[in-house]
């Protein structure tokens, strides 16, 4: 029997029961659509996080105080030395390092007039603007000066500026941070979230001042920008070496964004698979739907099957045309479901344009393959039953 003839024959049988076939196709397409849509969301979440990290700059190193011990044991001696502004300056002189910005952190109430707001305060230097590619909307970032000099300039995040000054220009105004008075020198352009901070809700002051008013002895981070991405591994070891020499112990941790990105990316990829797996349950249900429809079809068409056998159609040919019907239902469901899934993703993205949801290409291929697999899996038993019908009983319409 020719394939195109078998296909035409199976297609003809399905056309005989349009509503039933359409509903079965719908069932499969919901399953496939769910797989495609949820995979797209999971993949979108992964891309979103990767983008967020990458916005940090891919050639950044971050120095944290304290050694992250994978064994959980405390470092020998147990003393963790502070990460100091001197350390930051030493790091900035390491070969291959372009800029290094110290970060000290605290939280304080910022007041202007009778308005106040509790905000995270970051102490840093002018270098941070370059390292983190911070753009100012008005004025300037912190002035370029010696890190130990301190000073009482403040740069406001865009949201902080908007809420305290309500449309007035804050430039040159004096705000209070706790009991201290600071002069506003700049306002950041809106930037949004990045690695745990909402830059729009931060304020920046000179690092030395921050250490003093928050009574810190250690920096929170040193952000290091390398000259070249390719040399990051070497720069990282040199930075580590310099800090070990200064502290006489391995008591800092240097992380690259790559490692973090890779870790988050793999976690979110696993999440995507989990979502796809949950959606696949609906495919199982759809498969049972196919099986049900095909079993009904076999029962209804007993006489047809008997006739086929009487005119010399082989058992495996009987099985083949019934299996082909199941595969056609599944393939149609797969095609429709991919379209529905893609459509759902589009609708979602139109509501949340910043979320880069998109089903990876493999998801469509896999969806279609899974649909055909479901069709073959759940269609084979009805097809087998059709092929095993006793022709004499089938012709009389009786039960086997």
């Amino acid at each position, binding site marked *: 029997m*020719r394939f195109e*003839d078998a296909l035409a024959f199976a297609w003809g049988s399905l056309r*005989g029961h349009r509503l039933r076939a359409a509903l079965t196709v719908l069932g499969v397409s919901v399953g496939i659509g769910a797989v495609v849509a949820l995979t797209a969301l999971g993949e979108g979440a992964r891309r979103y996080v990767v983008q967020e990290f990458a916005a940090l700059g891919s050639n950044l190193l971050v120095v944290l105080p304290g050694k992250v011990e994978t064994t959980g044991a405390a470092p020998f001696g147990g003393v963790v030395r502070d990460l100091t502004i001197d350390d930051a300056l030493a790091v900035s002189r390491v070969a291959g390092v372009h800029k290094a910005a110290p970060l000290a952190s605290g939280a304080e109430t910022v007041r202007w007039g009778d308005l106040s707001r509790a905000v995270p305060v970051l102490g840093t230097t002018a270098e941070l603007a370059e390292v983190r590619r911070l753009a100012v909307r008005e004025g300037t970032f912190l002035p370029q000066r010696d890190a130990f000099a301190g000073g009482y300039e403040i740069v406001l995040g865009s949201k902080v500026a908007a809420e305290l000054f309500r449309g007035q220009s804050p430039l040159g105004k004096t705000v209070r941070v706790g009991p201290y008075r600071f002069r506003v020198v700049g306002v950041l352009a809106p930037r949004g979230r990045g690695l745990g901070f909402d830059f729009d809700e931060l304020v920046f002051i000179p690092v030395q001042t921050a250490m003093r008013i928050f009574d810190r002895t250690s920096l929170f981070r040193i952000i290091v920008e390398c000259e070249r991405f390719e040399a990051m591994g070497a720069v990282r070891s040199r930075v580590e070496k310099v800090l070990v020499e200064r502290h006489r112990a391995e008591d800092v941790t240097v992380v690259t964004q790559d490692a973090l990105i890779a870790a988050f990316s793999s976690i979110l990829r696993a999440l995507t698979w989990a979502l796809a797996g949950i959606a696949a349950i609906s495919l199982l249900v759809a498969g049972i739907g196919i099986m049900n429809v095909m079993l009904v079809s076999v029962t209804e068409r007993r006489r047809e099957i*008997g*006739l086929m*056998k*009487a*005119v*010399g*159609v082989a058992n495996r040919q009987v099985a083949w045309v019934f299996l082909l019907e199941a595969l056609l239902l599944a393939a149609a469901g797969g095609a429709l479901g991919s379209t529905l899934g893609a459509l759902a993703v589009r609708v979602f993205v139109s509501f949340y344009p910043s979320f880069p949801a998109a089903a990876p290409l493999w998801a469509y291929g896999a969806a279609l393959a899974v649909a055909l697999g479901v069709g073959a899996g759940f269609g084979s038993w009805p097809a087998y039953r059709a092929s095993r019908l006793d022709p004499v009983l089938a012709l009389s319409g009786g039960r086997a």
Partner: protein
Amino acid sequence: MIRLENVTRVYPMGQAQVQALAGVSLDIAEGSFVALMGPSGSGKSTLLHILGLLDRPTSGRYLLFGQDVGTLDEQARTRLRRESIGFVFQFFHLLPRLSALANVELPMLFAGIPKALRRKRATAALEAVGLGERALHRPDQLSGGERQRVAIARAVVMGPRLLLADEPTGNLDRASAREVMELVVGLHRKGLTVVLVTHDPDIAAYAQRVVRMADGRLVEDREGAR
């Protein structure tokens, strides 16, 4: 051409067993036209199904075209059904979604015959039964007699040597029955061996030889009127 030697057929029915054939021996020569008669339950349909390789005897031997078909596997029996045996049934068994032409093409479809050749042979077969004009009608647009003629065209389109008919006129009015029987007689004249099950003596009268059955046995075997 056909030789049955002490053929029995026993069906299990719950705990009991039903003996549909209780030892039938029969020879049918090539080119003959035999009517199988008998009351319901006499075993005539069972015998026809065994002759058509749709059923297997419980015991006894069946030689078709000189070959013991009991020893053949299902594949070989399927091939014999496809190439050498044509069936006609009381309820026509046309596929309702297919046109008359497509119904006649069906055996050729599964035999892998190319579309153009299928079309040509099916059209010729329909013309031979006088339905060339109605080739594209579906069964529900045809009368009972026309449907049975389509079924006859389907039965002979593969060029079989043996035509088996199970009450082919059982569902037809007398005029249609006569048309159908004249077609069968015409096919027989062209050399086809015909075995026909009926309980209507007027239909049996078309045959050369009438075999009567009762309770799974042959009870009478005589030359017919023709």
